[in-house]
């Protein structure tokens, strides 16, 4: 059994060890301060933080609606919300192009108003938000479902409006789930590749985020690609440490 268990452990562990093995320790600072790296890092941080902010602002009401909603319509909307998790990201990118591209379903109006999304930094944010939103919504909806409704009732009996009861009493009590959902969404946004490259391209300084830079550098300067990869690994490990056991509880409680 131990021998069998070693096979997947090697499968999961070997690539990470190889990455560390090949890390050019002496050139770390050079690689991290190269123009491609700094612009990708800056762009990634800015876009992923904005995308996470959008997920929080729009994800909260959506999670609430899913948590209190009943019946078929809610189930259909939830299925749509979860789709980006199982969808191949490149397909998400194609779908985004068809929706928000210059001649897209919605994009033609944006284009008419002079707003361009595909192959722009805003497009990067949109692609990241698209793939990250489900992680936030799932986390918050699960927390709202598990919540005891009685204390929100008490607040209303004591004179709070339903909205005030939600913001003053309900929201603070799901703070940890909101934080965990935001961290998950941010990690997903930061690592986004397929939807971004399809919908926004890979233009250095405009749409080339860290993962895209890694892919681009792999052909020109493999050592630098390894350094940026290691940076993403460090961030991923930090996210795991930050979330610890919350990660699993989020998925356990996703369905009612």
């Amino acid at each position: 059994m131990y021998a069998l268990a070693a096979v997947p452990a090697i499968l999961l562990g070997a690539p990470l060890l190889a990455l560390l093995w090949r890390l050019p320790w002496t050139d770390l600072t050079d690689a991290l301060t190269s123009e491609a790296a700094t612009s990708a890092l800056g762009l990634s941080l800015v876009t992923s933080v904005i995308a996470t902010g959008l997920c929080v602002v729009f994800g909260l009401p959506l999670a609430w609606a899913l948590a209190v909603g009943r019946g078929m319509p809610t189930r259909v909307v939830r299925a749509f919300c979860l789709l980006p998790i199982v969808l191949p990201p490149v397909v998400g990118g194609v779908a985004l192009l068809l929706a928000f591209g210059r001649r897209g379903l919605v994009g033609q109006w944006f284009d008419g108003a002079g707003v361009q999304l595909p192959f722009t930094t805003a497009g990067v944010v949109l692609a990241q938000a698209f793939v990250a939103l489900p992680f936030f919504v799932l986390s918050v909806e699960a927390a709202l479902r598990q919540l005891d409704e009685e204390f929100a009732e008490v607040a209303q009996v004591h004179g709070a409006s339903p909205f005030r009861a939600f913001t003053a009493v309900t929201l603070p009590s799901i703070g940890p789930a909101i934080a965990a959902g935001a961290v998950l969404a941010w990690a997903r946004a930061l690592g986004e590749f397929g939807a971004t490259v399809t919908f926004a391209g890979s233009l250095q300084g405009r749409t080339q985020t860290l993962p895209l830079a890694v892919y681009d550098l792999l052909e020109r300067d493999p050592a630098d690609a390894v350094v940026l990869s290691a940076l993403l690994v460090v961030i991923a490990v930090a996210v795991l440490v930050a979330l610890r056991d919350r990660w699993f509880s989020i998925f356990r409680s996703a369905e009612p």
Partner: protein
Amino acid sequence: MSALVSVRFRRGPLELDHTVPAAQFVALVGPNGAGKTTLLRCLAGLEPDADVEWHGGRPATFGYLPQRVSLYPAMSLADNVASSLRFAGVHRRDIAARTAALLTIVDIGDVANRRPHEVSGGQRQRAGLARAIAAHPAVLLLDEPFSAIDVTTRAMVRNRVIDHIRDSGARCIMATHDDADLAASGAARVDID
């Protein structure tokens, strides 16, 4: 005695049809499952299907202590009490002093900064009592208000809270199994069965 409020409510096997007299203190007495908690929920406006008729018009403000207390989990005990003052629109500068006075009445000043899961059931109930009476509501709905408080201090807390209610002029409707609650408040008894 004239009637304060009449309630009719049906859910499954539970059928309620009761009139609460217009005494300052009313005790709802009856076995478990008779519907005391549900009757209080109806009075609190939490059962939309209930037929509730307030004979002198619906009171403007309520204080409510549910059976499970249900303190706000993210707030300290002091903030739980202060929240009722905020919801009632009490001026910001008065809230701290009034909260401190309420915490003294129920004798939880020493744990006021702890959150509900960090204190005992009796301390939670005291905080819930303070939260209910905080803003001087017109009607208090208390579900077994002193049941979790330890025997040595229960009488003291009970007397203080009842005095506070008596002074504020609020009407108090409580569900109880404890004859001492009736004796201390001189409550009119309504049998629920």
